[in-house]
């Protein structure tokens, strides 16, 4: 960027093409605060543009400022103009470094940046020189994964940057067809599940579809699921938990059945609140455990008696001995 020269001139706003976003990667922004500031004190930092042909300019930096100018009817403004010898690649880098110096980029912006860098650099160069700049691990896999976010529908991309949908969960959604993805997202976005639970639900839906060779639509047609979603008695977290369990049961019918039977058996043993009987995780190991607490000798005696009764449970014996 040795020959970068900047000239300052007043430009007619109409000479700057606001639809030309060659160098722009801003995504998911709000103009309201900036607009308020510009209305109060005007534009302090002039936007940077590059002349593309006679009296036609392309935005390099200051996209949001220019959008506001248009909205509030500013006709002419002082602008910084890059000489036309500057390569497009360098103009893009000017905007990139300018943004990196003063704000945090969201993941969709990062994916737009990478996809635009691909016009100018090879993947290995981007991986080595630019991913670390963007705070990403320098691996081809990360590059592919990040760029692929651009394939998601706008609604889902917005949900990622506004924290409605976890980024990892969004990656899982990419495996679905456009139609199924929209459907799954529609349901999930209303349930406010944690990151891990979003991923779990999406994975389970996908696995069920693959296993049964069906579409998301046919799974979502279930009366049980729709009853949960339409219920007036359940709040959102309760609905989220029920929906999660619904898909888990469909995905792992035998395991969920065993877990439910264990809970039932434990209830029948009437161990009380101070004794916890646990099965091995996923029933894989052979170690069951009992935990209890007590505050007096009498409570201790009582607990030990109850624990002793576990050995008489036929269901427990069957579980342990097969």
């Amino acid at each position, binding site marked *: 960027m040795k020959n970068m020269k900047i000239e300052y001139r007043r430009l007619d706003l109409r000479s700057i093409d606001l639809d030309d976003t060659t160098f722009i990667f801003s995504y998911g922004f709000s103009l309201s605060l900036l607009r308020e500031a510009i209305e109060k004190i005007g534009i302090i930092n002039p936007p940077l543009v590059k002349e593309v042909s006679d009296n036609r300019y392309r935005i390099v930096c200051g996209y949001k400022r220019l959008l506001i100018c248009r909205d509030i009817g500013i006709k002419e403004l002082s602008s910084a103009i890059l000489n036309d010898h500057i390569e497009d690649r360098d103009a893009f880098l000017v905007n990139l470094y300018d943004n990196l110096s003063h704000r945090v980029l969201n993941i969709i912006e990062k994916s737009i940046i990478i996809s635009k860098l691909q016009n100018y650099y090879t993947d290995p160069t981007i991986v080595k020189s630019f991913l670390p700049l963007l705070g990403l691990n320098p691996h081809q896999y990360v590059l592919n994964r990040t760029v692929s976010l651009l394939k998601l529908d706008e609604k889902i991309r917005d949900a990622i940057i506004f924290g409605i949908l976890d980024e990892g969960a969004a990656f899982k959604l990419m495996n679905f067809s456009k139609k199924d993805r929209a459907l799954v997202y529609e349901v999930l976005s209303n349930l406010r599940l944690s990151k891990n639970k979003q991923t779990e639900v999406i994975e389970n839906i996908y696995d069920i579809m693959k*296993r049964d060779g069906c579409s998301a639509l046919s799974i979502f047609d279930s009366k049980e699921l729709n009853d949960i979603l339409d219920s007036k008695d359940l709040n959102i977290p309760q609905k989220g938990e029920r929906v999660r369990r619904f898909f888990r049961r469909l*995905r792992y019918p035998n*395991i969920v059945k*065993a877990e439910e039977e264990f809970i039932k058996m434990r209830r029948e043993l009437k161990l009380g609140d101070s004794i916890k009987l646990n099965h091995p*995780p996923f*029933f*894989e*190991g*052979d170690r069951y455990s009992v935990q209890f607490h007590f505050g007096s000798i009498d409570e201790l005696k009582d607990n030990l008696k109850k624990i002793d009764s576990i050995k008489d449970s036929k269901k427990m014996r069957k579980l342990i001995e097969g």
Partner: protein
Amino acid sequence: MAAYFPKRIIIDNRVKDSRLTHNIMDKLLGVPVEYVDNPIMVIEEIKKKENSFREGKRILLLTENRGRFIKPCPGTKEYICCGYQILNFATNCNMECSYCILQAYINNPVLIVYANTDKMFMELEDKLNKKPETFFRIGTGEFTDSLTLDHLISFSDLIVPYFAGKKNAVLELKTKTDNVDNLLDLQHNGNTIIAWSLNTQEVATKEELLAPSIGDRIDAALRCQENGFLLAFHFDPLIYYQGWEEGYKRTLDRLFAKLNPKNITWISMGCFRFLPELKSIIQKRFPLSKIVYEEFVPGLDGKMRYYKPIRVEMYSKMLEWLKDYDPNLRVYLCMESHEVWKRVFRDNRIKCSEDLARMLEAKSV
């Protein structure tokens, strides 16, 4: 099955004069050969390719094994292991099994033959001579298929006669191929067991791409039986799907219609299990495969396994069918817990890896 021929051969200059290199050069006239000083560069170049797994299988690299040729099977203490020793003469394989653990396990996609066999024999001598009272079961089929390259490298010409002269070891060559021509005239002295990985024909067709049919594997076993070899069979991985019972029963029917159970040294069973990272690899490389969508739980060794009652059911039925053919068949489970052993065999004979090793050694000798 059409025999494997690579599209390109890379020879590490350090092994250009080895016996295996000469064997292959005699048989692969016309295949482009490249001599290199640094085979790592070749591997790195292939790894960068979009379809590196598939591309890598087309390249045969002959190089040195700079580590140890013999290593104990990497069992875990949570599950009972047969205590087998692995002789690592090659890694990777030309076949395309959707479930192949090598896809997640080894970090290079190229088919590699370790041609510095002098070092291998020195290691073997050292191991077997140091403990003459110990009985060793040694196998080559852990990181590759033992016979898939045999028509090219004739590894069996070296290894089978070597074991024929040993008193305290048996060699197990484990394969899915019917590539047994080289073996038939070899002097084996009963010390080489030829083993096949068997499955249902449905699984073989859908999941074991490029591998011979079950019928071809059984026919190859028959040829080995006729030449006095001891045989073994591994039902590993047992795959759960709708119709698995008929499928496995049919395979057993076909097997015992041709083979004499008396010639079978052992039969192992192991339900499908996989490193968690294999799931996405299978989904990407074999989008039609459904094997990862059954009910899996994280095992105590970190691998995903079928929910325990499913495993117990599969093993128990298989055992029952096997015992119907011959109650004396030596059947064991690969990497299963004491609890599963107990439930399947309904006895408490095998409590730990040492018990299993003893059981298998008794049969081997």
